[in-house]
């Protein structure tokens, strides 16, 4: 376990090697193998650390490793006088980060392998660049989940944002891809602003950034049941950060556009790992959040609204990856809903199962896109089942999992969330249940349009299909396209591995009602409670204010408290809810198959009947347009205004002073030229002119001089004689 710092550093090393020398020198084979082997080693280390962690007693399952000093103690003002701001490179392995590490390194490894097949059409340098970015992403993501304090987590947080930007814009020659990358980055910055304000406030309030210390200190503080205090403000800021990274209302708009990146990237970053960082961050600060019930409510409401809104948009999208993107937004909403009602373990459980089945679905869609030579529009697919059976079966498993059909993984995690929501708030539960129905519908719509019905895609050689006029437009680097085909083994094996995951991952969290013991919840529980010493203190303090309504949740009893409550709820309710959610899923599936397989005309009839609603959904509620009209145009307008100010006033002043300097220089020049030089020249000129006249006197003839001298003598004599 002391080697956990190696888990992020291994892919970091791979990224550096591929990035520095690989782009120029490595063959595709070497670059791919290097990236995959670093991930394999990281996965092996993660498993080893996990096994070691399991070997410890539950209350001792936390291990901190300080790799190096980073920021030495700096005296800074805090709420309790001068504190020491310091942040070492500390890594923390506890049940929560262990689960996340396993998910990231495991799915990351599978997607690295899959990428070898998916990206084989790229040129050599671009291939190494791709793997360098992908490894770099894993480095930052593992830093994020293993970070032992807010600042290390923030390094990872920003790093994954950077990698997301780099990978969305991987095909940077394509304007839409470059724009989507920028959009993702900029929207994320808004969230990061909230996150970093939260970090500042955490330091100001607690005088430390270490997760454990902050959690213990927060556990000792009273629950802000009635008001909106410092803890609530911290949690709100952190949640703003989470909405950015995890694509929640109002910052979800970047995720659907992020589908411009290569499909394995969508699977890894925009479905399985990075977008769940917000959920992880909220869960990591579970104790803070349980002390801020108002913010918890905000989280739950935002979560369920996001889930519902994204699901409705997903109903009408025709791009296979966009459906999955909205599905991801929707499922992330579920996870926030879980954390918002205090079911942190259920949120993380859903995060884990979602990572499996959503990565599977994305990789499956990538396999389809690969088979269709770049086509992403589901209306031009159909009947692919017979061409690519492995993809079909694995994707079907993923779809059943997300729809919540037992015994696939999604059923257990989603049902847990629905159940806990039901106990907390019936209205929110209702919205979440509708979302479950919609989820089943749009996912089976996707499956039906892609794999069932008639083939609507372009024709290929030896297949006289009526769609011949579609040509081979979307078909890039290959010489000839021989129709849809099953993907190579390097792609189908990760699909199969993930399908197995999507089938069995749910069994770690079988609820008590079904005879299980909800192992994952008990495993994760220590991460959501304060350490034992503080726990005791808090309980002691609690007796003094036992009247406070939410006091039962104080002192880190949040998760456990809910667990007990859950145990007390009638078994019948839990069973009923399970039956209901399965029923909803079945209804959704039936409706989808009816509309898109048995009676394809029914869906068009629906679309025309509810034309207004259909148009709104097709345009994604016009949120992009709204943001464009307000935030984007506002920013641009402000920029233009400042530009005009710069241009007119600042430049004007500078130009004016330049002009004035030139003018005065010109005046001075003229004075010099005509007055000063004129006087000097006048002296010379007048001397020259007068000498021209006077030189006539100098005849050079001695006799003239002598005569003049004589005349002078006479003149002097005359004066002398007559004036005496």
């Amino acid at each position, binding site marked *: 376990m002391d080697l956990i710092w190696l888990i992020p550093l291994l892919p970091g090393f791979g990224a550096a090697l591929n990035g520095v020398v690989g782009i120029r020198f490595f063959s595709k084979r070497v670059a791919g193998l290097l990236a995959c082997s670093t991930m394999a080693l990281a996965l092996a280390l993660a498993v080893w650390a996990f096994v070691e962690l399991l070997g410890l007693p539950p209350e001792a399952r936390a291990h901190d490793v300080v790799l190096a000093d980073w920021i030495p103690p700096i005296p800074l003002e805090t709420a309790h006088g001068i504190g020491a701001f310091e942040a070492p490179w500390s890594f923390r392995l506890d049940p929560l980060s262990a689960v996340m590490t396993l998910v990231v390194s495991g799915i990351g490894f599978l997607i690295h392998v899959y990428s070898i097949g998916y990206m084989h059409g790229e040129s050599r340098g671009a291939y190494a660049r791709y793997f360098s970015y992908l490894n770099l992403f894993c480095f930052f993501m593992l830093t994020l989940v293993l970070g032992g304090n807010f600042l290390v987590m923030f390094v990872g947080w920003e790093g994954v944002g950077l990698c997301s930007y780099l990978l969305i814009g991987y095909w940077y020659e394509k304007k839409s891809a470059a724009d989507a990358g920028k959009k993702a980055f900029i929207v994320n910055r808004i969230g990061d602003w909230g996150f970093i304000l939260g970090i500042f406030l955490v330091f100001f309030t607690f005088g430390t950034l270490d997760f454990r210390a902050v959690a213990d200190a927060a556990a000792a503080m009273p629950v802000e049941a009635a008001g909106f205090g410092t803890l609530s403000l911290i949690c709100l800021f952190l949640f703003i950060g989470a909405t950015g990274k995890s694509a929640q209302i109002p910052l979800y708009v970047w995720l659907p556009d992020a589908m411009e990146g290569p499909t394995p990237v969508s699977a890894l970053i925009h479905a399985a790992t990075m977008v769940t960082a917000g959920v992880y961050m909220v869960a990591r600060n579970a104790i803070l959040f349980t002390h801020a019930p108002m913010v918890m409510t905000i989280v739950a409401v935002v979560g369920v609204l996001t889930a519902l809104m994204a699901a409705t948009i997903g109903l009408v999208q025709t791009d296979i990856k966009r459906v999955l993107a909205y599905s991801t937004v929707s499922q992330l909403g579920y996870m926030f809903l879980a954390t918002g009602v205090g079911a942190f373990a259920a949120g993380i459980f859903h995060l884990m199962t979602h990572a499996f089945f959503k990565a599977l679905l994305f990789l499956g869609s990538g396999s389809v896109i690969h088979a269709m030579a770049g086509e992403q529009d589901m209306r031009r697919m159909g009947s692919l089942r017979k061409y690519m059976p492995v993809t079909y079966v694995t994707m079907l498993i993923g779809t059943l999992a997300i729809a919540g059909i037992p015994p696939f993984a999604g059923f257990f995690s989603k049902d847990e969330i629905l159940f806990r929501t039901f106990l907390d708030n019936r209205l929110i539960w209702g919205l979440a249940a509708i979302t479950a129905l919609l989820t089943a519908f749009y996912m089976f719509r996707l499956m039906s349009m892609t794999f069932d019905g008639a083939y609507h895609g372009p024709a290929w050689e030896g297949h006289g299909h009526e769609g011949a006029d579609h040509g081979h437009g979307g078909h890039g680097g290959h010489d000839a396209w021989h129709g849809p085909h099953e993907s190579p083994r390097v792609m189908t094996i990760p699909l199969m591995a993930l399908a197995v995951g999507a089938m069995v991952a749910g069994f770690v969290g079988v609820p008590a009602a079904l005879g299980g013991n909800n192992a994952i919840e008990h495993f994760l529980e220590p991460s959501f409670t304060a350490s034992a010493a503080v726990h005791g203190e808090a309980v002691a303090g609690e007796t003094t204010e036992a009247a406070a309504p939410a006091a039962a949740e104080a002192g880190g009893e949040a998760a456990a408290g809910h667990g007990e409550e859950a145990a007390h709820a009638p078994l019948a309710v839990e069973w009923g809810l399970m039956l209901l959610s399965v029923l909803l899923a079945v209804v959704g599936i039936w409706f989808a198959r009816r509309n898109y397989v048995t009676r394809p005309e029914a869906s068009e009839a629906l679309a025309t009947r509810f034309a207004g609603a259909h148009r709104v959904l097709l345009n994604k509620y016009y949120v992009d347009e709204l943001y464009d009209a307000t935030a984007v145009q506002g920013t641009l307008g402000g920029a233009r205004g400042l530009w005009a100010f710069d241009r007119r006033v600042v430049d004007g002043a500078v130009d004016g002073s330049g002009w004035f300097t030139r003018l005065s220089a010109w005046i001075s020049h003229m004075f010099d030229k005509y007055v000063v030089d004129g006087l000097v020249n006048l002296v010379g000129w007048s001397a020259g002119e007068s000498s021209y006249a006077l*030189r006539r006197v*100098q*005849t*050079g*003839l*001695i*006799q003239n001089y*002598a*005569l003049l001298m*004589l005349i002078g003598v006479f003149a002097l004599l005359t004066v002398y004689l007559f004036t005496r």
Partner: protein
Amino acid sequence: MTPITPAHYMVLSAALFIIGVIGVLVRRNIIVIFMSIELMLNAVNINLVAFARDWQHRVGPDHVIGQVFAVFVIVVAAAEAAVGLGIILAFYRNKETVNIDEMNLMKW
């Protein structure tokens, strides 16, 4: 017969001097001009000697300053004649003329 008084000498002297001046001013030949200058010098000598003799008659025989001065003038005139003739000779060698109108280089 009227005695010869300094006035008579002065008239002679003035006449000689004026002849010299006119010679200097009007003649073209530099030799003649030179001779005219000598004429002027000797007019002065006559004056000096005449007044020195008048002074001897009236004050005493020791007063001969004027005659001594005249001797000086004669010496200086001799020196001047030597130098002047040397210049004229040099000039003649260059220009092959002794016409004073040709000697106008010292102007402008």
